[in-house]
């Protein structure tokens, strides 16, 4: 699952490239413009490094926090097959978080720093995970919509200019396609089930549709970092372009299920060859980014508890290794 750059843009923090050696900067810009990959030990502008650390670590945090809403249903999956599938999916999300943390670490930040930033509330993660998973249909809707939006975001990032990030994205994309398909399969089963089951599927779509559209981040006019990030090939498409693409692809999938997308303004626009759709509730988006999402507090409590409860294991493993090394040396 993916996060795009979140948070209300702070003009003071918009990437500044002043103060860099002009010759180095020019050579760097030329390499990026030629679609070359930048590797960890290459020279890069400070702002490029900072933007990447923020984006990749947010992305990693989203994968890790993203395990929580689905993990909530592991013990209550309706069959052994669904349970095995969900377990594999949740494990994948953990793996994706690890690929991404490693990619961020190549930029000079440490795992501990990133985790500390998440747990202290300083770092953001995707707003989508601050919504609760109330019924089994939510697991279907998450795979279908949330992973669908994630894939839409991540596919272009396979060509992002920073090599370790691009390589992590290649692996993530390869693995994530099953996530979306298993979710849609759940939706098919529910939409073709009893009237109650179909109503659950519709209810899940109603609750997850708008938060999924929010996953693409603020609208382009409120995303001043986008221009610089696109210039540096950190981003390859704007938020609004990706959001439009997602709507165009997903609406027919909802129609196939016989479900209704909860947007009265949704209408096919023949001239542009895409759907017109209603405005995202940006007040809600920014509120969730600020940490006011329905289950934001629970999510961070669960993360901190897991980290704190595991502290003795991390320390014991290091102590064991130190003792073994000392014995071998003696």
């Amino acid at each position, binding site marked *: 699952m993916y996060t795009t750059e979140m948070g209300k843009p702070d003009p003071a923090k918009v990437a500044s490239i002043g103060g860099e050696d002009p010759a180095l900067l020019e050579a760097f810009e030329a390499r990026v413009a030629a679609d070359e990959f930048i590797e960890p030990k290459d020279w890069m502008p400070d702002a490029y490094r900072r933007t990447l650390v923020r984006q990749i670590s947010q992305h990693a945090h989203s994968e890790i926090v993203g395990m929580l809403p689905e993990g909530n249903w592991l013990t209550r999956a309706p069959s052994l097959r669904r349970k095995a599938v969900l377990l594999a999916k949740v494990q994948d999300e953990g793996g994706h978080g690890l690929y991404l943390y490693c990619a961020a670490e190549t930029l000079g930040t440490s*795992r501990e720093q990133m985790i500390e930033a998440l747990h202290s509330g300083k770092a953001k993660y995707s707003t989508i995970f601050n919504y609760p998973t109330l019924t089994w249909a939510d697991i279907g809707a998450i795979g279908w919509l949330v992973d669908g939006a994630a894939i839409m975001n991540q596919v272009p990032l396979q060509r992002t200019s920073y090599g370790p990030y691009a390589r992590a994205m290649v692996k993530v994309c390869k693995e994530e396609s099953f996530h979306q398909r298993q979710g849609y399969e759940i939706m098919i089963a529910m939409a073709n089930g009893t009237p109650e089951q179909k109503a659950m599927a519709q209810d899940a779509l109603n609750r997850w549709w708008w938060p999924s559209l929010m996953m693409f981040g603020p609208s382009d006019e409120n995303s001043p970092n986008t221009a610089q990030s696109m210039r540096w090939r950190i981003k390859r498409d704007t938020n609004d372009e990706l959001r439009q693409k997602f709507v165009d692809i997903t609406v027919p999938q909802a129609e196939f299920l016989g479900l209704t997308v909860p947007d009265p303004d949704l209408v096919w626009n023949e001239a542009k060859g895409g759907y017109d759709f209603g405005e995202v509730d940006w007040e809600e988006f920014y509120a969730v980014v600020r940490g006011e999402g329905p289950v934001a507090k629970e999510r961070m409590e669960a993360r901190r508890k897991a980290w704190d409860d595991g502290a003795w294991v*991390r320390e014991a493993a290091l102590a064991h290794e130190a003792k073994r090394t000392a014995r071998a040396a003696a």
Partner: protein
Amino acid sequence: MNRDWPLWEVFVRSRGGLSHKHVGSVHAPDSELAVRHARDTYTRRMEGVSLWVVKSADIVASDPDQAGPMFAPAEDKVYRHPTFYEIPPEVKHI
């Protein structure tokens, strides 16, 4: 102080006959756990038949800023490639 477990680079041999290839890294307190973490992180879909882990700190790399002078000497030695040599077309199997 950084209390992270040490970092290990992970290499996977995808099948017999191929070389190990770098796939990413993991944190682990020792080599044995590094192999286990590497298995869980990088081979969940039969990506490999063999794993190597190497402490990241033990890898010595060439300097990317010196890539020009380091690799340039090969550039003007085109006579190291077979296409440099002109052989009449009627000569076969060479």
